[in-house]
């Protein structure tokens, strides 16, 4: 009991700000899908085939949204909007999971998805206002030898399990491990997520939001940053610079 009490105290104080955050500049995002591919390659995401992907079952952890404004010839494509798990400080997915499979990481201030605890009620996905969770609707097999490229640092999910963007937590852990073995702190920009790493336009910046010196904190201070659906009180940790 004592342990739990302490943990909840940490949570109360940590709700003010997250630890890891991201800034996405929609003005320079070209929608090229490099982040989507990089994410899939890094995180062992299954492809689902034509029929299922057309039926809303694709497993992209990050998707690029675009809408249209106006009618031809005055039509405009709205700025590409990469949508991924916002790693909310006060996430709506967390309280509804009956099994604590989606929990808040007190140490890293991320929304975790613990695959092996997930029983597949899909309540979290239902309750996610950003609709960024992907469910393993089937056992999507990777035919041999495609499985050779699986990243050993990321659990391969099986049927019936929810999954979502983790802010490449395996890279966070690896960087922390390396830094610790060298007796120092993780330096800003020392590592980044797969999507930010790939982005040819450098539209994605990842880093510590609790470090005022970090690049991502500096960017977040800019006035044109917005957070999506902030009015729901989710305290998202991804800031968007709108296009134009």
């Amino acid at each position: 009991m004592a342990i739990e009490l302490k943990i909840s105290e940490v949570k109360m104080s940590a709700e003010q700000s997250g630890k890891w955050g991201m800034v996405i500049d929609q003005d320079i995002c070209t929608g090229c899908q490099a982040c989507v591919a990089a994410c899939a390659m890094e995180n062992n995401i299954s492809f689902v085939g034509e029929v299922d992907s057309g039926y809303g079952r694709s497993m992209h952890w990050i998707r690029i949204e675009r809408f249209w404004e106006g009618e031809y010839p005055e039509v405009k494509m709205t700025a590409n909007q990469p949508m991924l798990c916002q790693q909310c400080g006060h996430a709506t997915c967390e309280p509804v999971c009956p099994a604590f499979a989606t929990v808040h990481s007190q140490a890293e201030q991320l929304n975790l998805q613990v695959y092996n605890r997930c029983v597949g009620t899909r309540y979290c996905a239902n309750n996610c206002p950003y609709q960024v969770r992907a469910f393993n609707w089937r056992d999507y097999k990777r035919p041999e030898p495609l499985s050779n490229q699986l990243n050993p640092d990321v659990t391969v999910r099986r049927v019936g399990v929810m999954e979502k963007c983790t802010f490449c937590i395996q890279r966070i852990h690896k960087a922390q491990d390396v830094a610790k073995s060298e007796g120092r702190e993780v330096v800003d920009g020392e590592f980044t997520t797969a999507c930010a790493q790939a982005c040819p336009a450098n539209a994605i910046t990842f880093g510590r939001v609790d470090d005022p010196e970090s690049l991502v904190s500096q960017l977040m201070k800019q006035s044109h940053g917005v957070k999506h659906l902030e009015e729901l009180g989710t305290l998202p940790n991804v800031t968007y610079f709108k296009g134009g």
Partner: protein
Amino acid sequence: MSDNKHHAGHSHEEHLREKHLMLDPLPRGQMNDMVMESMLEKPTWKFWVVVGFLSFIVVYFLFFKWGVLIAKGQGEAGVMRPDYWGIFLVNTVFWIGISHAGTFISAILRVFRAEFRRPFTRAAELMTTFGLVQAGFSIFMHMGRVWLAYWLMPYPNQRMLWPNLHSPLTWDLLAITTYLLSSTMYLFLPLIPDVAMARDRSTGWRKTFYKTLALGFRGTEGEWTHLRNAMNIFAFAIIPVMFSVHTIVSWDFAAATRPGWSSTIFGPYFIVGALHSGMGAAVAVLAVIRGTMKHMKYFIRGEHFDAIGKLMLIISMAWAYFFFNDYMVQWYGGDKWTQQLLHFHEAGPMGWMWFAMLVCNIVIPWAILWNPKWRATPWLVATVGIIINFGMWFERYIIIPISVTINRMPFTWRLYKPGIEVPMGIGTLALFILLYMIASKLIPLIPVWEVQEGQMAHELKKFGRETVVSVSELE
């Protein structure tokens, strides 16, 4: 049965006796025999054909398809982003709703001493239990990894892991389990005198069966006192359980942040909805029992349909109130996504269902049940009951897969197309009917002691020229 009682008499009195079971008493022994006869009657070939057909559906559509679902994953069903919840949860809510009627009829009407309840409390209570079984099946079908469902139960483990008590689904599980256990007990308690009666009138394996179930009940005064006390306690205790269950089910939706779901009125709205569908299902079951089983025309009469019909009408009105209340509250909430959703309900591709829901739940009940004559016509009321159930199923379908189509990320909106849920849902319905059919051959569907108790309390008294029904207070 009432034929041989046709002797010359006062016509009004005669009319009353013909109409009201409570005023048309038969000796206890004769009623016992009638019930035993209806139960032990050798089933016709039709019965076996139906049982065989239902068994096939249950085995193939429910269990085999469930195996397929487990082996291949939820992709076999029609769920996807954003409709993560589909017909399985529609059915869960639907069956829990149905199960409410049993408790309502049995407990609330018992508490309020509604005398017309007496012959069919058993049938209604069975509905509670059997309905909950289907609800349980449905919610387990919904789970992605059902083999790990036991993780939702709090049990001590070295991992320091417990179910999340913030989650409405955990409350749900606790509520439904409580409800299932208490309703089963509440079904069993009034059954004891009847199985004791059956024990004394049967031989062979049935004797052993009833003997086991009767727990040695002999009908002594002490036993009756204890039984009555227990039943009274349960009748009072189960009412809040019943209300809580569907309120909690409604919180699955109301506690979520989705447009159209986070509505404060959902609790009572769901309960009234549950009673609506439950009464409809109960009246349909009664009509089938009355039509197919021997001697049941004596026990279940027009007056019962009339009384339930009145209840259905009132509940329909209450439902209509809550529906429009919910609609208005959401409409005036001014949230653009909710408004989009409300518009989608009526004008979207599933708009027909929204209108069908209103017709089935409001227009048809109101149009038919206001008329006392129609209300006393069993087949008509039963048809209305079935139509209401369609309407209520539509209501849940609109609340779940149709409402989750519209969310705050328009890029993901998609319309739900059911898959394996349909046969599996039919499987649960078949299992429900099958359980009823088996129960009709195993336990007395009419609580004879309760009927007799009522008949003893009722008498026709004459005050001057007026014949008046008087009910003496029971101990």
